[in-house]
């Protein structure tokens, strides 16, 4: 007698511990093998893009905190860059340096969570992510010093930053930066040679170079596939052209490569922060900008290399205090479109670590 088997559909999420929020995968499974997958998002849609059109430019800064809530500073920075382009606002030197320091700290903080959560998806029961959070706490303490907040900072302003860094910031930053490389090395040593991690992550969830470019992937996902593309170098913004750093890339584009790229990027961020700290000048941190800013008619696209990829804000002004169009190019969403191609044919467990290695934040995907 022939036994009849058929594939079944598993609704993976939106309430699931490893979907990093309210993401849903409609997986067609043949036993353990993922035959087809359909990503479903929109459960966290808040209409930020539309609401922003009814509010003044300055009132929109807090919204950018709530996109990628694990890297709020990056959202702030990208939006402020876009408005500065639109209204042609100069930024003082000191503010530029503070912005670079803060943005790179934010990159480390975000990558810590990304790597920790990836390992959590691999099944390392909470230990890696808790160590990562321990280190992230130190960075959050620094952010609390400058902005008073620990999650949604609302720190950057058009033409600078909201306030100068306090006195105790620099010694504390020096301490964190001195400790961070040792910590990253220790962590890397423990995990990079772990036989089970290698077996799980090497060669799994491969994103080919061509596909990565075609879908418009960016950030560690693109660089893991071996494309040397970093907006800090390719389309230098702020004062990044003054600093020396390398762009780490992977080779094959599997989960392990993406993990390695993140670890190495943290080291490069430490390098940038050190240089910025040495060069930090005295002076003003904020250019005076009218509260109801009316940028001249036109459009602008401000983009930065956010921890998760290219974060861009496309703004259209019609010389009113509100933006006529407020569009967000969220790296998480664009990177997520590669998930189906990466996960089909692998097992459920692989699909999950592939998803984890993309490092998405649902606040940004659904906006």
């Amino acid at each position, binding site marked *: 007698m022939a036994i009849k088997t058929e594939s*079944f559909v*598993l609704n993976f999420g939106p309430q*699931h*511990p*490893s979907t990093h929020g309210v993401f849903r995968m409609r997986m067609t*499974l*043949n*036993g*353990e*093998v*993922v*035959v*087809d997958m359909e990503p479903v998002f929109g459960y966290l849609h808040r209409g930020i893009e539309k609401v922003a059109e009814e509010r003044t430019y300055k009132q929109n800064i807090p919204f950018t905190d709530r996109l990628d809530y694990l890297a709020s500073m990056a959202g702030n920075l990208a939006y402020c860059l876009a408005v500065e382009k639109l209204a042609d606002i100069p930024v003082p030197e000191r503010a530029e340096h503070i912005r670079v320091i803060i943005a790179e700290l934010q990159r480390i903080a975000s990558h810590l969570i990304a790597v920790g959560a990836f*390992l*959590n*998806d*691999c*099944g*390392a*029961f*909470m*230990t890696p992510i*808790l*160590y990562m959070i*321990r280190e992230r706490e130190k960075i959050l303490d620094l952010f609390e010093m400058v902005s008073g907040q620990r999650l949604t900072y609302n720190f950057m302003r058009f033409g600078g930053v909201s306030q100068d860094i306090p006195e105790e910031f620099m010694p504390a930053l020096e301490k964190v930066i001195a400790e961070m490389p040792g910590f990253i090395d220790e962590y890397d040593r423990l995990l990079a040679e*772990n*036989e*089970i*991690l290698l*077996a*799980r992550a090497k*060669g799994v969830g491969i994103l080919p170079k061509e596909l990565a470019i075609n879908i418009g992937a960016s950030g560690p996902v693109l660089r893991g596939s071996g494309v040397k593309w970093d907006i800090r170098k390719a389309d230098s913004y702020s004062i990044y052209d003054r600093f020396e750093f390398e762009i780490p890339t992977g080779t094959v584009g599997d989960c392990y490569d993406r993990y390695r790229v993140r670890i190495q990027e943290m080291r490069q961020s430490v390098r940038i922060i050190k240089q910025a700290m040495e060069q930090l000048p005295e002076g003003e941190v904020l250019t005076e900008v009218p509260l109801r800013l009316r940028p001249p008619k036109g459009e602008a696209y401000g983009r930065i290399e956010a921890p998760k990829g290219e974060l861009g804000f496309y703004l259209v002004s019609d010389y009113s205090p509100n933006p006529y169009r407020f569009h967000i190019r969220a790296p998480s969403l664009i990177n997520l479109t590669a998930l189906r191609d990466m996960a*089909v*044919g*692998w*097992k*459920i*467990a*692989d699909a*999950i670590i592939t998803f984890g290695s993309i490092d998405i934040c649902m606040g940004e995907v659904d906006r």
Partner: protein
Amino acid sequence: MYLLDNYWIHFAVFTVVIIAFILTMVMGFIYIERRALGFIQVRLGPNRTGPFGLLQPVADAIKVLIKEDIIPSKGDKLIFWLAPLVAFVPVFMIFAVVPFQRGALLADLNVGILYVVAVSSIVAVGVFMAGWSSNNKYSLVGAMRDVAQLISYEIPLGLAILSVVLLAGSLSLTRIVEAQSIPFILLQPLGFLIFFIAALAEVNRCPFDLLEADSEIVAGFNIEYSGMKFAMFFLAEYCEVLVLSALVATLFLGGWRGPLLPPFLWFIIKIVAVFLFVIWIRATIPRLRIDQVMGFAWKGLLPLALINLLITALEVLVWKGTLPWLAIFLNIAIMAVLILLWSKFFRLGGGRVEV
């Protein structure tokens, strides 16, 4: 002890003692696990209920008892009811033959270890019943994984036990402990490793906890269970670890034997030590994938267990029961060579399936 010589009184007393022992140990285990995990993961762990959080297991028990008992409307209700019992009872039954000290056991079966292996396999049936009757895809996937994994790992587990039996010359657990003038972990280092890894897989502990993989299939077979029925599975899981620790202590660490302290205390110390090791593994190692788990059993553990059995048999034949200290060094050397060979040629593979 005249009274205990009576069969029925012996039976009654030891049943009560064993159940009390298991329940207290399991409560202790839950507390130890949470505190030890907290210690490893740079956090505190439960420390609010009672002194040092000692009453946390009690609080958990009360919470679980007053929870609503939910039965999935499209599930198979009878099997859904039976499954926790089928998973729970065999684990308790194993303790009937585990000697706490000389003569202190419910039934000194002359086929004790065979009984342990046989009874412990029943747990898989209970887990599969739970997975099937929940009418939930996650739990079905978990249950399928469990059955595949348990059947695969039972073979290296049995072979590792066989080599111990060869050394001791008996299937009775009491006799095995009495035969250990040198703990068998020294005479059987490879056997110990195989037994420990296979037993970890049998009780679904990390890195073989695919059955309940929180990050993949949420909680696997017990996803639909709540209240007391969930508590039964939870208890069964910890009892299984207790059994694992007790068996490792009995078969390889010399059971109740030890200097100075009373035998019963030695036994408990060894159990807790093994358990702490299990927690340590859980807190540090990521999970394997299902095909890698199966490959590891069939390509890694099974050949090694067969080789180990052959070597042990030859040694027993040559030295005729008077195993000298030379055997210890020889076996450790053989283990090192075999593990090096396997790590060189054996890869946890698995790859993409064309669909």
